[in-house]
């Protein structure tokens, strides 16, 4: 198995781990971490695609690499916005939770539905 395929499998596993974290952990900060795991898994899939596109004297296709660099910067900005929201929510309410206040939504769709 080439190191590229191995990295692709790691990417697949990271997407799965992150997805589990996003669904199963109710704390926003843990969800943000999990989102970053999914993100890096997705980037790794781009990475093996780039590596398998080695040609013309390049050891990896530069186009997906450019996309990953763009993606990493966007992912950071998204984390920053999510962190700022979480901290403000914590300051306002003393807790950090995604549950909207009771009454604004029916009781049957709780945090498990994320």
């Amino acid at each position, binding site marked *: 198995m080439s190191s590229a395929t191995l990295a692709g499998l790691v990417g697949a596993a990271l997407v799965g781990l992150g997805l589990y974290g996003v669904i199963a952990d109710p704390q926003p900060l843990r969800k943000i971490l999990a*989102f970053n795991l999914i993100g890096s898994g*997705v980037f790794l899939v781009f990475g093996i695609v780039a590596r398998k596109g080695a040609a013309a004297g390049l050891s990896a296709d530069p186009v997906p690499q450019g996309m990953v660099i763009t993606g990493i910067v966007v992912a950071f900005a998204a984390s920053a916005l*999510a962190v700022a929201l979480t901290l403000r929510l914590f300051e306002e309410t003393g807790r950090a939770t995604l549950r909207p206040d009771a009454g604004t*939504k029916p009781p049957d769709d709780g945090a498990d539905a994320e």
Partner: protein
Amino acid sequence: MTEGASAFAATAGGSLLALPILVPAAGVLLSFLLGGRQAERIALALMPVQFGFAVAIASLIWRSGQPLVYVLGGYAPPLGIALRADGFSAVMLVTTSLIMPAAGLYARTNFATPNDGTERRAPLVFWTLLQAIQAALSLIFLGGDLFNLYVALELLTFAAAPLVCLDGRPETLAAALRYLMFALFGALFYLLGVALLYGAYGTLDIVLLSRQIRAEPAVWLAAGLMTAGLLAKTALFPLHLWLPPAHANAPAAASAVLSGLVVKGSFFLIVRLWFNVLPALPNAVPEAILAALGSAAILAGSALALRQERLKLLIAYSTVAQIGYLFLMFPLASGPWSAEAFSGGVMQALSHAFAKAAMFLSAGLIAESLGHDRIAGLGGAGRAMPVTFLALGLGGLSLMGLPPSGGFAAKWLLMKASIEAGQWVWAVVMLAGGLLAGGYLYRVLAPALSGNRPQLKSPPRRSRENVALALALAAVLLAFAPPTFFAFLQIGRPAAGAALR
């Protein structure tokens, strides 16, 4: 490569396509730099310009009968990025450029900079992000490259999420965070699908991809991931949980834009994906799944709307239901009745955009005038503010699908297509949805039009009522769209060819 060259022969006037993206983007940067009152001035000044671009693009497409194409930087796809506009893009651009100024004019009261020119938080953020939404939507409607469209999706998320919690109350913060999480999830899954498509075909250009796509595992997985991601952003049942609190808690002008336009952005991409990128797939099963989720959304959204105690939440849940109608076009839009179903779906997107924007603006006026938006406390309010309730009611016509309204035209077309296709079940769902919509609107309108006039905290300003009314009338006027309008929608629609297969 010769084949590629013909697809990217720059069409006359193609450079026009870059402007509706670049001009509001420049507006965002300038507004943030100059701050204070300039943000509002720049935003409002650019709106007619944006309308001009949209109309110019539409008329160029109309005159040539062909989609417009523009290649950025002289680097033709697959290496570079192309912009493309077909009939559907053009009507969505025009619709956006009409609803934006309405929301802007309405919002001037809520987001005014004080007379001494001191910069305030909410106005600066609102006017800057409103332009960002405009830029992001333009890019979504015009983008011809799947990764470029990912950037557009993120642009839209970053512009829309902070608007939800602009007033800073804890429940709005939670709603915004939830919205952001769903949007991030959606964007990442979309991006994963993009990676797989690039890995399979080495291009992300929509036209080049559509020529090469075959039914193979990577494509199916990519299609599934991208659709799931976009559905989360469109809030199709059962991924709708973020929408009601977010749309109901945002300031009214922002709600109008979020509910009327922003969810249509990701819906537009689902249409692009299935009709423009993947028409070669045997897509009966996935399209039936989309329509089944749409049906569930119609029934569940309407039923939940019936149970709401606050007007804005009711309207937000009705968005959940009305989004469902959009997805009924999918199983119907291949086959001899495809043109009708496609037109019906687009008509639903347009009429809901106008109607829902009108209703959220009306609800905002009601909440400001009464000091609350509890449905139980609306008795007689229709007598105190008749124009507002007229706008609310006319918007409601479209939701119910009663004539004369764009919603009626949409549902009529979809129903005709489903009967012609022998797929009765969608027609039944549409009828049930119409009845339920009638039910929840009756709950609001019936008490409001009877009973004693309540004491208003402050009567709504006539100009703001007129803005809401104009949007509602636009939703009504769509019912009278001439046949040429439907012919225009078909320009550049690839499924027209697929219908022959």
